[in-house]
């Protein structure tokens, strides 16, 4: 149990996918202008990342390793994740229209998101078993959501402040992201 707790804390804070591993910066900047968009994106990522972690683990374990095709890992994972997201979208639209309404426009955005792919590959590299993979994927997604929501909260306040024109928009966003990353570096060596 302690191992799982450690896994979770490390995935959320210490090895935060956005601020410690710098994966998924595109949606980090793109969907953080508004809190509502940010929370929607965070939920969609949680959903997809957990699913993708599980399915890529299965692909790796039962297809690539037995046939010694590990060198196809990246392309195979991309293909599988993309198909998975499409499938999830189709199924959701029919079975859970409310959830589809909430996540709908974000799902296509993350079909080949580097954070999703990154977590899938880390799962393999660290030799996690199925349970660890699920926990790590989910926790990484929570970490992603946490960083995104904090970031959106800060950026929403930018409209209330007077800042030089050159810094408005993405420029101040990147600076803020850098400062946040520095803060998250403080978690290094926590364990």
């Amino acid at each position: 149990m302690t191992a799982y707790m450690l896994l979770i804390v490390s995935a959320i804070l210490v090895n935060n996918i956005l601020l410690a591993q710098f994966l998924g910066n595109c949606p980090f900047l793109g969907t953080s202008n508004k809190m509502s968009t940010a929370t929607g994106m965070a939920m969609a990522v949680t959903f997809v990342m957990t699913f993708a972690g599980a399915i890529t683990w299965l692909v790796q374990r039962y297809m690539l390793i037995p046939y010694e095709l590990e060198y196809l890992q990246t392309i195979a994972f991309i293909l599988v994740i993309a198909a998975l997201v499409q499938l999830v979208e189709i199924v959701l639209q029919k079975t859970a229209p409310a959830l589809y309404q909430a996540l709908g426009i974000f799902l296509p955005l993350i079909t080949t998101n580097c954070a999703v792919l990154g977590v899938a590959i880390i799962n393999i590299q660290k030799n996690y078993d199925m349970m660890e993979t699920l926990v790590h994927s989910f926790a990484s997604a929570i970490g992603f959501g946490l960083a995104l929501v904090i970031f959106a909260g800060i950026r929403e306040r930018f409209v209330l402040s007077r800042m030089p024109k050159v810094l408005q928009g993405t420029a101040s966003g990147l600076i803020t992201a850098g400062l946040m990353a520095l803060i998250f570096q403080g978690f290094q060596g926590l364990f």
Partner: protein
Amino acid sequence: MIEAAFVIGGIGAVAAAGLGVAAKVFAVYVDPKVTELLDVLPGANCGGCGYAGCSAAAEAVAKGKAAATLCVAGGDDVAEAIAALMGMTVVKGGEVSLAELGCKYGMDEAHIHFHYDGVADCRAAALVAGGGKQCSMGCLGLGTCVRACPFDALVQGPDGRPVVIESKCTACGNCERSCPKGIIRVNKPSRRFTHVQTTDDCVAPCQATCPAQIDIPAYIAAIGRGDYLDALRIIKEYNPLPLTCGRVCPHVCESACRRQDVDEEININHLKRWAADYEMNVLKEHVLPPKAPPTGKKIMVVGGGPSGLTCAYYLARLGHDVKVIEMMPKAGGMLRYGIPEYRLPKATLDFEIEGITALGVELECNVKMGVDYQLADLYEEYDAVYLALGAWDSRRMRVPGETDFPEVASGTEFLIKRGLDEETPVGKNVVIVGGGNTAMDVARTSWRLGAENVYLIYRRSRKEMPANDIEVHEGDKEGIIYKFLNNPTKIVGEDGHLTQMEVIQMELGEPDASGRRRPVPKEGSEHLLDVTNVFAAIGQSPNLECLDDDDVGEQVERTRWNSVLVDESTGTTSMPGVFSGGDGARGAATAVEGIRDGRLAANGIHMMLTGDDVAVPPNWLARPPKLPGVDEGVDIAKGDRANMRELTVEQRALNFEEVEIGLTEEMVKCEADRCLQCGLICYRGFRSKES
């Protein structure tokens, strides 16, 4: 290599097959029309239609919930394309909607509380104590609406206030939704004239004081630009009878004019007359306003006076089917049968009424409710009824001999006869009793008919006279003999003919309920006057007999002054579906008050017919607010008021030519330039003072 291609191809094939199966199994039915509609819609996702984006709008149209004209961004072409797809017809409303800024001055020209260093958004600034401006409804000028406009139709002007580029504005409403103070609005004529001014609106002192609440600074500005038609458009959004009001209105607006603190008030009423005369004398044809699409609702207006005509006019503009019935041979009410020719020529009034009937208002004269029609029948047949019954009964003097001689009559009777072109001979010595405008009209008419001595007997002094100052002044010039502080006590005659009238002197005592000092007779001061005619003009009251003996009419509650009891803000009576206003509800009053009632009642009727609550905001401007004048130390150049040009007294004798001949174009331009273009507290020349 081959192996890799096969594996990846295999995964791809499996995924594709899986997706294909899923798409079939989990297929959601999408109306093919929605896809087609999406191709037609512009895809701007502006939300101006009220739906969340174009796909939601397409779904609404496909389900038949929205009209073909829903897309505000696409314009006519898109509406036609949608209509073609859905087999609908485009119902076109002739009205154009545009964004409109309701604030006249930017931050540079306003009192400012404090600066918000760092706040770059109006909504944020408004949260902090309502913004920096002292004016609670002034534009904050931080450009939130400019950023909210998806069509680049707004740019920030030099003073921070947004400027609307009309050619780009699609009336999507994003600016209105983003403005925390409701200053920028997507407006169209019908939304403007159904708007009830509230304490949250920027109304200049004159506009707030005008019973009809015409946007006076706006039309004066239009006149200053030389755009007389635009001025007329602005006037007619609150007053459809500017030719009449430009002549007979007591213009209380001028008494509120801020310019009084500098030199003299603006000649507002005659500027209005200029704009109206321009249509009649220069264009010589009616410029009809756009009408909303027809609604199919039928409304009956009983009474063709100023209030009834106004109500009919606005209801017609809202797309309703309106009919007016009038008991006299011609419409106009007291404007025709009370106001003499030299103040308001009948031809002018005819032109004004034509402008209303040309809009599609049906007018039937010589029919009287209670005789030719019963209210109960009208109530049955029409969706709403507006009672504008007027105040046609005259009050009597209650002195001995009042009813004994044919030469003693009421002033209104006399004026009605004149309006009907009947013979109204007067003798040498005419006495008019009363101090209102009717008394003045009768006196000045008698003088024109050749009376040698016209006496006006009023029991109070000149100061208390309710008649317009100009009327008293002109009457003086025409030789009317005012006998203030006098009251008739007896009327005497010989052989059935009037010879003399006994008059008693009065003196002013303690103030009464109306605030005026009560006149008290002076004992023993009675004296006799030789008279040939006596006209009593001491007040008029409504006659509601036509509502008696009628199932519906009986349910319409009266006041204790025997007028119809109404809710002033909407014209509703105690009987749902029956509305009332004008003299019949408020007792004898002015034309412009009738016009106010007419518009508010048209509003009330429209709210009822469209299913809204018939109510106005609680903070509506029922009475003019107290507004500050021109501050000390503000430097405004003085200039003379352009006064009305009029006929000399010699030119007026023995004829009924219109006395006031109008301003000249230069006079009008100068006068319009004098206007301070006030807002609620701002005005031209006003500069910010940090505090």
